[in-house]
């Protein structure tokens, strides 16, 4: 635990990717495998569900510090971080635990959940007594379910890969899906030998880079990406990106967020029974009334988050799987084949399956970039977000690799952000909180990056207004800071590096596209991800 706390501190105090990476690799070198497994688990963003109600933790901290509850709250207000306040207010203990991370998590933290309050109290007080500040902070972040640190999953993947001497694509694949943080898992993760894939395990998704639509060249296309003959164009569908896996007579549907979506899309699951064993499809789940009659995302949203889908809803909002790639064919991983070959096999396969819930996404014909540019103009009518441009001769890459897939969106940039400040508007909506400031994650902090006004309807604005009034944390003049709870999708026309902005990035014409009721604040995007959208930047981390 000492080492893990030191790792947290090392990552926390630097903004330099290199230093973070070095700290991670050093940690993996020294940690035993059970600890390394838990560290990977937490660093990749998995959390223990809150183990003890924070209300109790606050009360006990005040008691240990011998201060009244209001003074604890005032301290919290100054520090701005609950776990840190719980760490600082309680006087130092007189022991220093040298137990390992895995022992801490498995034997001391997880058992807290099942305990009665009095027993929890005892354990928490004991924790305070045997932890120096650095360690206390990390443990309390784990207990409150607020552990976050400024590394991305891809950075952790790189660090494990460097330590293990295994390519990061392989590590990335092995980290997909759900896994248990055990020593055995970690040993398989870093093993140099090829392991059999677990039948449910998805492949890492290949992600598209945005093109800069402002740089349109009739010969070399948007962003000057190349000759038209090198690319295929498809609609960029606005649904849920997913992989359909058919292995060992079973079906698994995964979302891009690596969530196994069981029983959520019965139409797709039953159709997938017809796929030959050893098949993995990449595509988009869309609400659709038949081929090319895609419904707006708002319709699909009705089905998101429903654990059980009623027959009525199944009729109202039927879904299809719009497949656009084939990753495993007849049990063989074909990701290194060229897109043209994968596409040919995909068409063959789905024509034999011939099920209305499985469509192959259409290729859009075109003889010039101008022609495609016109087609792109019709995206909204198609309920698509624009065009995808895929290089015919490219392999299916892991993550966001430049030059393989490009997205040429109508609204070029969108990102999910958390509302943190609100201010009253003027004119027609004066008196209502209509002007919002949005933030993105940077480690465990939300950094404000854009203000947006328009894009919501009156009903939604009233709802937000009520939310702001009920959830104000602080008022600075006309501006209210609110509890970070609401997630909105923002679109903007341009992005630029800016030293004048706290976030380091300036957005042009930001506007709200929709309220993401389906997302929690922790699902919002990170500043790194925003940076990754910069037309000329390599993805960070």
């Amino acid at each position, binding site marked *: 635990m000492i080492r893990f706390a030191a790792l947290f501190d090392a990552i926390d*105090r*630097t903004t330099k990717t290199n230093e973070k990476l070095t700290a991670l690799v050093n940690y993996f070198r020294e940690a035993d495998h059970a600890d390394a497994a838990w560290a990977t688990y937490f660093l990749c963003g998995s959390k223990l569900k809150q183990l003890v109600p924070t209300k109790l933790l606050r009360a006990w901290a005040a008691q240990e510090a011998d201060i009244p509850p209001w*003074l*604890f709250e005032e*301290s919290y207000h100054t520090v701005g971080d609950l776990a*840190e306040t719980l760490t*600082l207010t309680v006087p130092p203990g007189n022991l220093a635990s040298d137990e390992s991370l895995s022992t801490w998590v498995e034997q001391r933290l997880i058992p807290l959940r099942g305990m009665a309050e009095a027993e929890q109290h005892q354990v928490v007080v004991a924790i305070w007594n045997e932890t120096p*500040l650095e360690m206390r902070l990390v443990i309390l972040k784990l207990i409150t379910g607020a552990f976050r640190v400024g590394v991305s999953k891809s950075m952790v993947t790189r660090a494990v890969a460097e330590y293990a001497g295994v390519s990061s694509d392989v590590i990335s694949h092995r980290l997909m899906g759900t896994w248990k943080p055990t020593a055995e898992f970690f040993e398989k993760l870093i093993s140099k030998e090829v392991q059999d894939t677990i039948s449910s395990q998805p492949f890492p998704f290949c992600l598209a880079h945005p093109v800069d639509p402002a740089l349109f060249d009739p010969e070399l296309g948007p962003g000057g990406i190349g000759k038209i003959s090198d690319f295929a164009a498809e609609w960029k569908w606005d649904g849920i990106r997913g992989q359909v896996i058919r292995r060992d007579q079973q079906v698994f549907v995964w979302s891009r967020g690596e969530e196994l979506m069981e029983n959520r899309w019965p139409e797709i699951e039953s159709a997938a029974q017809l796929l030959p064993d050893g098949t993995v499809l990449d595509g988009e789940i869309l609400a659709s009334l038949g081929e090319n009659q895609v419904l707006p995302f708002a319709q699909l949203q009705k089905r998101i988050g429903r654990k059980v889908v009623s027959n009525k809803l199944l009729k109202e909002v039927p879904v299809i799987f719009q497949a656009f790639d084939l990753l495993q064919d007849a049990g063989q991983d074909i990701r290194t084949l060229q897109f043209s070959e994968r596409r040919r096999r995909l068409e063959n396969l789905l024509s034999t399956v011939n099920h209305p819930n499985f469509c192959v996404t259409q290729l859009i014909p075109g003889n010039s970039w101008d022609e495609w540019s016109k087609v792109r103009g019709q995206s909204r009518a198609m309920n698509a977000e624009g065009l995808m441009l895929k290089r015919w001769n490219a392999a299916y890459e892991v993550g966001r690799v430049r030059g393989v897939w490009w997205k040429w969106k109508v609204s070029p940039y969108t990102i999910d952000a958390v509302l943190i400040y609100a201010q009253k508007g003027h004119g027609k909506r004066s008196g209502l909180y209509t002007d919002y400031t949005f933030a993105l994650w940077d480690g465990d902090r939300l950094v404000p990056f854009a203000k947006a006004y328009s894009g919501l309807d009156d009903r939604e604005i009233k709802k937000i207004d009520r939310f702001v009034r009920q959830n104000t944390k602080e008022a600075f003049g006309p501006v209210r800071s609110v509890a970070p709870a609401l997630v909105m999708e923002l679109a903007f026309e341009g992005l630029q590096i800016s030293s004048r902005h706290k976030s380091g990035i300036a957005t042009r014409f930001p506007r709200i596209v929709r309220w993401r009721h389906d997302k929690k604040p922790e699902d919002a995007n990170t500043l790194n991800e925003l940076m990754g959208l910069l037309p000329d930047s390599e993805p960070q981390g």
Partner: protein
Amino acid sequence: MKDVLESTSRGLYCVPGDFYIDPCLPVNRAVVTHAHSDHARWGCKRYLAAKPCEQLLRMRMSPDAEFRFLPYGETITIGGVQISFYPAGHILGSAQIRLEYQGLVILITGDYKLGYDSTCDSWQPMRCHHMISESTFGLPIYRWPSQQVVFESINQWWRDCREQGKCCVLYGYAIGKSQRLLAGLDPTIGTIYCHGAVQKGNEAYRRTGIHLPETTYVGSVTGKHDWKGAMVVAVPSVHGTPWLKKFGRYSTAMASGWMAVRGARRRRSVDRGYVLSDHVDWPSLMTAIHECNPETVWLTHGFTATVARYLVEQGRDARVLDLLGRDLGEEDKDEEESSDEDFIDEPIGQGNESPEIEATTS
């Protein structure tokens, strides 16, 4: 107490003695707790301070002023008010001022801390009727780690930097913090250099008889120089300025009480934040009040209202002292204990140190 001390736009005024304590504007007669610029203001006619404060105060105030210095514990009477100084443990020569008038004892703590510091005399409790105490760090989140542990980690950072071929730049205020840091550094690790303002402070300390490790003035190093493995103690205002360029690859650290909170560490954007303060933390503030056991506590600086409310709930008469004409409170926080230290009136080194001017005036 009103008949003896009153809060005015020039600072705390002693009515029967006709003098000001730590005035914020030039006055005829100033009695000062210590030489930090938010306590000892330039331009007063006469200054009265504790004897060990002499070198620092003469260095910073106009030589035209009239000075008088009183050893700790001795008494002088002005207008029937008995004035004496007792160690405050804050920096060299810092004092608590004890006033006695017709049997009423008032203690003005100035800035103070409890515990050992090799560069100044330690604070001692004084019984009094009224205690005017600072509360810069008056929240239970502020609990200073032992300075031994802090010095050890600073020295470890220095060793690590030396291994990596880097130069260490450690920030502390020109007088007080810097010398305390110097006294805690392990000079066997490498050579110690100081920024001009710090070096001037060092000399005043040495003249007073305080032992500090050998230091070299950065500005005296000319031509190409290898700074690898060196320790540079500098004022925080040079952070992020071209003055640092000459050191090549370097790592920065700040030593201050505010470094206890991660958010404050980040705002400073230094590589390391060490928790080392010359003010009382929460537990020592409570100890000090308990030991002085005044009838009434008056709080100035920082979390005054919070501390007052807490003490009242504990059954003690505690109030916030409104210091007119002084801009206190939240604001102190950003410029740190730095309301202690105003670099603008700091003497600037010559020649190649000129970027400091940009840093302090921008």
